């Protein structure tokens, strides 16, 4: 398939509130690029404008200002039916009056593909997702996961330059979601198709994407690979949004090769820090659960009491109530380590190599 790059340049979208008549900005000055064959996820809380970006990319909403390019072509003013994009909808949007075959064949018929070729291609694509036996079924007699697959195949069969997915897994149960995640990634990879994925589920975003774009209130906050976003978030919002996290107040001692911070009288050298931090700034140390460990009270950077232990086999999640709120510490290989009982006083320590110093926000 011809996969193409996608570029958004300074896209802004302003909606008019029908009640008050006031202009409400939904997306403000968003620019990014997707390389051919790349899968990029738009991640953000609901109402942050990520679906609006997707709908502008597909052509359903015209941007108020800015340009959208697919490959080298400026598509800003091209209507959705003439755009080389295909969208998988949150509610699938299957045609209820057509059976599975006709649903998948719809796009091909519109492109005036000859009948035998349609027949062959539809069956081949249905085979790909294991649905060829259900070709004659109406969508209402399919399970959620099957409907999802039909929707996916219906979009893929027209060989779009860009595949757009709008929270496609939000209507599925947890187990099915995991299966479909793998399936989507497999199909996208094997067809090497450029894809944009919208979700508010961080695990989906982490597990699927080549890169993640984190949005908040209509603006892009950070663009990066899943590990960049996880380990090197730009601020406390991103840090909190993409995973469990604890923040400990600290004072910056010096900034050189490392950022040296002082937490409760102890000094640590942290390899990552927010730009612009300088000595004597009040800041926060960001720690992920897997970088935290428990010890005797008074030894670590923060004291607290264990309130719950969740045994997960390969790890135990210990919840510690402290002055910084409920902190989660993840202890790997729990059967070889000491597990502090519920109600026991403990202290928290962290591994500076996995932490980051963030500005207070």
């Amino acid at each position, binding site marked *: 398939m011809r996969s193409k790059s996608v570029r958004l340049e300074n896209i802004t979208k302003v909606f008019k509130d029908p009640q008050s008549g006031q202009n409400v900005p939904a997306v403000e000055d968003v620019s990014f690029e997707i390389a051919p064959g790349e899968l990029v996820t738009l991640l953000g809380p609901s109402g942050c404008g990520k679906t609006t970006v997707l709908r502008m990319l597909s052509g359903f909403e015209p941007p108020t200002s800015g340009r959208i390019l697919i490959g080298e072509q400026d598509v800003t003013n091209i209507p959705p039916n003439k755009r080389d994009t295909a969208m998988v909808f949150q*509610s699938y949007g299957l045609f209820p009056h057509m059976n599975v075959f006709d649903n998948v064949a719809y796009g091909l018929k519109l492109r005036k593909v000859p009948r035998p070729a349609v027949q062959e291609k539809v069956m081949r694509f249905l085979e790909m997702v294991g649905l060829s036996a259900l070709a004659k079924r109406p969508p209402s007699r399919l399970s959620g996961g099957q409907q999802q697959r039909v929707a996916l195949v219906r979009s893929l069969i027209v060989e779009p330059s860009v595949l757009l997915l709008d929270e496609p897994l939000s209507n599925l149960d947890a187990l099915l979601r995991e299966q479909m995640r793998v399936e989507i990634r497999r199909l996208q990879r094997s067809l090497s198709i450029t894809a944009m994925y919208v979700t508010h589920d961080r695990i989906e975003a982490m597990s699927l994407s080549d890169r993640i774009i984190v949005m908040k209130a209509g603006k892009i906050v950070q663009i990066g690979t899943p590990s960049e976003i996880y380990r090197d978030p730009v601020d406390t919002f991103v840090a909190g949004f993409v995973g469990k996290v604890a923040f400990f107040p600290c004072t910056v001692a010096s900034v050189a090769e490392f950022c040296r911070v002082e937490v409760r009288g102890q000094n640590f050298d942290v390899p990552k820090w927010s730009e612009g931090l300088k000595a004597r700034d009040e800041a926060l140390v960001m720690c992920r659960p897997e970088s935290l460990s428990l010890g005797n009270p008074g030894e670590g950077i923060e004291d607290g009491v264990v309130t719950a232990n969740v045994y997960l086999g390969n790890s135990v999640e210990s919840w510690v109530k402290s002055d910084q709120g409920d902190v989660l510490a993840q202890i790997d290989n729990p059967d070889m380590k000491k597990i502090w009982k519920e109600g026991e006083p403990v202290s928290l320590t962290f591994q500076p190599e996995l932490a980051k110093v963030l500005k207070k926000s």
Partner: protein
Amino acid sequence: MFTKRRVVRFAFAAALIALVEAWIFSNVRAEFRSIVNSSQMRSVAVTAESFSALAPAEISSWLERLNRQGASYRLAWIDGIPEEGQALPATGDADLVRLYRDSVRDPEFLKGFDNVAYEERYRGAKIWSLGDVPYSLIFAPAPESPKAEPPRGEGVLLFAFDLAEQRSFERLLVVLLGAAFCVAVLVLWQVQFSRDPIVGFAVTGLFLMSLVFVAYPLFESARLSFVQEGKLTFQIWKTILTSRGYQAALKGSIRLGFWTATFSTLTGFLFAFVCSRTNARFRSFIAVMGTLPVISPPFSLTLSVILLFGNNGLITRWLGVTNFSIYGLRGLVLAQTMGMFPVAFLTLSGVLDAIDSTFEDAALDLSAGRWKTFTSVTLPLAFPGLLSAWLLVFTNSLADFANPLILSGDFRVLSLESYLEVTGMNRLGHGAALSLLLLMPTLSAFLAQRFWVGRRSYVTVTGKPSGRVTELTTPAVRFALLSLISLVVVFLLALYGTIVAGCFVKNWGIDYSFSLANIGEALTRGRDALFDTVTLAAAATPLAGVVAMIAALVIVRKKFHGKRLLEMLIMTPFALPGTLVGISYILAFNKPPLILVGTAAIIVINYAVRELPVGVEGGVASLRQIDPSIEEAATDLGADSATVFRTIVLPLVRPAFLSSLSYTFVRSMTAVSAVIFLISARWYHLTVLIYNFSENLRFGLASVLSTALIVIVFGVFGLMRLLIRKNENLAKSVGA
């Protein structure tokens, strides 16, 4: 969207169209003027010819005769050719002579006389006004006649030709070309600047349609009620609001509406209560009987009321009553109640079904008695529904025209009065004003129902139907209710039976022997009308159905300026009495630029426009239940708006589409109030023929045609129910 290139292209194309239209305009105008000129010159020549044969004594009477006969011109004769502002004696049209006296020194006149002196005709370039009407002048030589006694020298014949016709032709030309220009520019605009030109065209088309066929006729009838003999005046309204006759008609309409609405609401509530709040048997039969009259043709129930209770009616004769007349308020209330209680029944059964019966259970549980429960829970909850049903029937009764037409006797109602003004006395302005007057109570009841009562509804939507309905009636009460219902049902069946019986009886009221003669005669005489009626209804049906679905799609799914206005315009005809629509249409479409009176088109358009609102409402309701992403998915796969409409929307709203089709067909088959104004010798309507037969006391023929109409209508309705039922699986999956 507004790139420089597109703007330039748009401006260029618009300028080109304007140029072409200007060229057409100047050509057509020049051609028309030259035709007018040559025909006027011809009549000038003929007149001059006949003038030369006149004896001097005959001249003044000849002039007088010509001017009085109302030739296409006014004429004056000047004895001699004036030179340099000489005032010579002149005779002929008084205004023209005065004009000559006043402007002898005018260069135009001097030039004219100069030409005449050289034996040439001269058409003046200036436009003169005689009594506020524009005229153009022609100066022609009046031949001398030396042989006359005394001999007469050369003179001038001064012709004044009326310019009004030419002006109105040119105005029409400007209107037509202007409209063409506007449409062309709108289309261009869509093509150049719209992301979705097809939707743009649909919106433009809907706007044009509703402006031309809803707003324009209404505006015309409102305007004409203020115009008499070409002048703006309040005379018509003054007459209508002060004359006793019209006041009586207004009062009559309201009295009739009040009683019909009251009786219909009571009957409707009785039916609805038994159907949704008791476990009585035959409830589905009762529901069918309570719905049937909605689709029965006009006149059919009225006809059988006359057959039974008329002066020669079966029951009147049987009882031997002589001092009783069914014609008037009593008969009307009876006929209308039988025809309109289904409206109340349908409204109220909807309301009662939607009120959760657990409220009643709770009341019973708190040890209120059944009667107490009914009066303190059921009735108050249903009150907005009752009011709403009452108002709906009230509106229907006021707008009703068919029943009063043959049953009113001396009783006067507005809808009938406006019809008589138009057809009997040819006073269109009065008719328009009367039907506008009728609009006031109708519209206020309609609006009250829509916006005031509609919002106060206590309909409780829990989503969970509570299983069994608690029996609220004791067996005795139920027996009483059922007896009352049986009475109504038996009466209704008797009415239908009477019509059918009427077909087979030689001469109702006089000779009850069996005969098939009526059937033969009626079908022969009614064949053309039957054919016309079916043809017109069949033409209007797909039109209204498709337009309704397009309008619904545009209203629900698309964003554009003026959406509320469009919605209002489309929905307006629903609240308009048929007589008003009919009168407005003949007022608006019997003159340029749109002359449609007498054609099939005006009837078809009238059907389509009047039945559109119901179709649109159905389409809107059904589209609102369909996930928009289904249509978006189709668009995304490459379908343009028209394809989405054809392959996705239309199949999905099929139930609404089918019922809109059947509704339009049935209503068009049974139309009378508006169509009676619009029929012509070429295009006739069966209901009007039924009316004519019953006016002439040929009840047998009327019965046959009514039966035929009932059979067709019920057949179509049954067919449609069957088609919709097949679709039920689909409806479920769409919702999910």
